[in-house]
């Protein structure tokens, strides 16, 4: 297996130009969804089968004018499939269409997927979408075809500010640590790394430097970053207990014995109520 590769997205220097979105669509031949006007600079909306990169705009627009030094940051984040070490989508996929590649990225085999869509409900980041034309689910491949040819993903190649950096995961983690140290030293106490370590899904192949809490960016925090299988045992146990009670109830209701049976079998006719 090759050394794990990844993407480090530093949101502190994202300018919201969406070059990553365009480059992703061009390389992966994604036609995109029909344009929509929203009450936002975000005209992509969400990650889905056509948008494997999505620049989120967290627009803190105050109701009243802010005083100097008391404003809100207008946050931007180029979102993508996180290529989780412990991936929820891969865990639930019944066809084994979702696999880990030799680069430790998560990949959906289009010729194996049968479009059951279980992975969509499992992905905690909403990174997977269903394509009606192909009848299968799609998401970022981290440009698997480019990786196999020693090229960097299209989004990282196109990013003009180097907000998106590609490389060996271990190298990116060192860069991220250094960048976080700089930001903290510059007086940004809210700055934090998301998915840098194994606290979230065993570590993310595409991890982030955030300028606020993960929830602000629509990312589950450490407590909410949980795998679907957490519910397996307790759900089956609930069903098992119900089943045992139901079988016992059936035995009580159906067993023929004593006077009850004699009365009911003896008349053979319908009884009346009262």
């Amino acid at each position, binding site marked *: 297996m090759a050394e794990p590769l990844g993407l480090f997205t530093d949101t502190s220097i994202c300018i919201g130009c969406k070059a990553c979105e365009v480059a992703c669509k061009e390389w992966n031949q994604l036609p995109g969804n029909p344009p929509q006007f929203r009450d936002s600079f975000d005209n992509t909306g969400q990650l889905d089968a056509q948008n494997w990169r999505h620049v989120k705009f967290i627009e803190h627009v105050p109701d009243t004018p802010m005083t100097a030094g008391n404003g809100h940051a207008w946050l931007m984040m180029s979102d993508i499939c996180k290529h989780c070490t412990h991936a929820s989508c891969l865990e639930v996929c019944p066809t084994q269409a979702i696999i880990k590649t030799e680069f430790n990225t998560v990949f959906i085999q289009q010729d194996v997927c049968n479009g059951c869509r279980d992975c969509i409900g499992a992905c905690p980041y909403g990174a997977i979408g269903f394509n009606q034309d192909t009848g*299968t689910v799609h998401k970022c491949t981290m440009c698997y075809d480019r990786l196999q040819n020693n090229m960097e993903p299209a989004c990282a190649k196109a990013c003009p500010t180097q907000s998106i950096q590609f490389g060996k995961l271990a190298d990116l983690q060192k860069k991220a640590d250094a960048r976080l140290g700089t930001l903290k030293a510059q007086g940004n106490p809210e700055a934090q790394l998301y998915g840098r370590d194994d606290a979230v899904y065993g570590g993310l192949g595409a991890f982030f430097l955030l300028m606020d809490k993960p929830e602000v960016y629509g990312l589950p925090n450490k407590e*909410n970053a949980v795998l679907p299988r957490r519910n397996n045992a307790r759900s089956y146990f609930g069903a098992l207990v119900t089943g045992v009670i*139901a079988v016992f109830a059936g035995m009580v*209701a159906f067993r023929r014995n004593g006077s009850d049976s004699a009365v009911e079998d003896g008349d053979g006719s319908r009884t009346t109520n009262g």
Partner: protein
Amino acid sequence: MAEHFVQSPAWGWYILGYFFVAGVSGGSYTLATMLRFWGGERDQPIARIGFLVAFPLAVVCGILLTIDLGQPLRFWHMMVNATPGNYGLSFKYWSPISLGTWALLIYSGLSFLSFLEALGLLAFLSGALGRLLNVIGSVLALFIASYTGVVLSVSNQPVWSDTWTLGGLFLASALSGSAALLAWFAHSRPDATSTQRRLLRADGIFALLELVLIVLFFGTLAAAGTLKLELAGPWIIIWILVLASLVPPLMDLGHGRPAVSARGRTFTASTAFIVLAGVFLMRLAIIFSAQS
């Protein structure tokens, strides 16, 4: 409080239909086995009807599941790993859909044998072997009727993943609906009065179990902070209808000896319809509210 940023899998009417039909099929098979084991000679015609109902509905289950797929012709990928160079059977015990696929396949085979036996075509299954088949088939039938709830819970969807009660809730409601359905069949047979009474008594117990599980379901959602989502908009009306559908079986339970008379409170096709509608609506509210 649970926070969710997930997208909807867009599971719609086919999946709802599957959850409903799987429940009635599994419930009917289980009740038929119970009648065969613990009932008397007079109960056997209705037990046979239970087996005759279970298999055709299992076939419908397979059809609904297949046509819901984005690539229906690849339905067999659920059972066979089609990854080039890695061919073999596909079985993931930790994935409820994978487990359920195999369970449904085996259950369909066993319910087919019971179907033929109920038609009198397989004499060798009328003895101990047939009873063994019924026991194994019932274990799978109970699984089929309940695992659909587990499928929902083993996700990151709001509501579905915030509770452990769905497997049990789906099972209790499936058994209640199946008991009402078989009681309706019994209603048309003059020699099955006592069988009908037993089925109504069982239905009452299952409805009580379902009511307890609905309370637990709401309680777990309240703790997770997603109860509002489940009761928002039209869903509260659906839940009121679901609770109303529990009234007839609970009244039967309250009477002790359920009435089956034409002059008293009559068990009719409409009573069975009300209970079955409740089974359907409960699944509808749970499937669609979380995705709205």
